[in-house]
């Protein structure tokens, strides 16, 4: 039996392709999952806030915990001024979290394992940071790239390195999430493939298959951790970058 560990990342068209000029649009499985994520997150929070009780119910507790978690993260890394970006960070966090967790359901599609999605998210953050940085600070934003207390003769190099370091942020920001999800899902699939292949060998194979099966169970637990952790890391990096836009070099 052939098992292709990459097959799970294939994109299928769910609708006829619409041709607009030289571009082709179709409703794909990726788009369907993104829509599902947005609907789920919206339903959760609209449902949770519909009946606002002093003593929160289960749903309301979830919503409040989510709010407080993101708000604390944002306050601790970008200060109270950062709270104006709360809707942005919260949306990003919830989207990535739901995409990662839904991707762990067998046979489902992981939106964040597509590089284009994470790059789009990271560039959104990047342009928000640059745009708000210049709008809020004007040209003082450029002081971010000029460290204080550096001798004048190496300042050009240091500034160039700082600029490159700043430009590499969206790359590492997106690749980290993408690579984590991709690697985790491929690893799971490969080990699950071992189980099926070994089980085809009869009695001995069944005993052999127990080992990768245990591995798959353990890896699944690890993947749950990674899914939540990466959503958190994505959010906190966003907060840290926003902090630079709000207080560049102080």
């Amino acid at each position: 039996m052939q098992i292709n560990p990459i097959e799970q990342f294939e994109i299928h068209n769910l609708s006829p392709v619409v041709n607009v000029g030289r571009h082709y649009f179709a409703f794909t499985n990726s788009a369907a999952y993104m829509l599902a994520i947005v609907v789920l997150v919206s339903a959760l929070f609209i449902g949770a806030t519909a009946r606002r009780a002093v003593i929160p119910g289960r749903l309301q507790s979830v919503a409040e915990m989510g709010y407080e978690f993101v708000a604390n993260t944002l306050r601790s890394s970008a200060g109270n001024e950062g709270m104006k970006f709360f809707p942005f960070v919260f949306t990003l966090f919830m989207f990535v979290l739901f995409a990662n967790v839904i991707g762990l359901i067998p046979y489902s599609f992981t939106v964040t394992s597509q590089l284009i999605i994470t790059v789009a998210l990271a560039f959104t953050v990047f342009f928000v940071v640059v745009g708000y940085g210049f709008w809020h600070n004007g040209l003082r934003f450029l002081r971010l790239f000029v460290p204080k207390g550096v001798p004048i003769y190496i300042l050009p190099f240091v500034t160039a390195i700082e600029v490159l370091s700043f430009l590499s942020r969206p790359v590492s920001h997106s690749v980290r999430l993408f690579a984590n999800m991709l690697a985790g899902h491929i690893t799971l699939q490969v080990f699950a493939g071992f189980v099926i292949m070994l089980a085809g060998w009869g009695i001995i194979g069944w005993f052999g298959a127990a080992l990768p099966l245990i591995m798959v169970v353990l890896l699944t637990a690890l993947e749950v951790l990674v899914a939540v952790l990466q959503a958190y890391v994505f959010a906190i990096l966003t907060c840290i970058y926003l902090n630079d836009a709000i207080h560049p070099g102080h």
Partner: protein
Amino acid sequence: MWLGKETSGSTVRLVRAHRIRLANGPWRKPAAGPYLLRSQHVDTDLAFLDSPKASQYGPRGFKGRAGRDRRHAASVERMSDGAGEQGDGGNAHTDEAALSARLKRLSERLARDQPGRASNGAGEDRAASASGYAKGFRLSSELVAGVMVGGGIGWLIDHWLGIAPWGLMVFLLLGFAAGVLNVMRSAGVVPGRSLDGDASRDRDK
């Protein structure tokens, strides 16, 4: 093992340090290594170890410790029955007591100046670096991102200005430096971009 190996002036203190731990808590076998490493797990006790009268040693204004530590000192006297010959170098003791006190002051100052580093394990930082796997991924992606961006910009400059291969060479190296800077910032080795001691915020970059 200890007495047999080291016969310098500090031996006596080592033996005692180790016996204090024996008296006050569970015995921990000291790791092999330089002297300071060995004594790290008894660091709070070091300042008075050399003598029950701690006030003669240590930094200015160090009047010795009262109460609890006096008791410790007494126990030192009791426990270190055989090893307590004072004659072998009071000078070295003084220097080391002063040194340990200075190290302690230094670490206190560092903790005050860089609160993020002191509260290393607190809250979100611990969560963000919960697994070594995640940490490795984070650091490697930082380095790769720096090199990739540097190489990409260099290639574009070559492409536009037709000065190949100079743009690629220069910017690949600069990108590598930026990648290393990213990694060091990410690991919290160097303070972040905000330059007024606000290291805690940028640690997790």
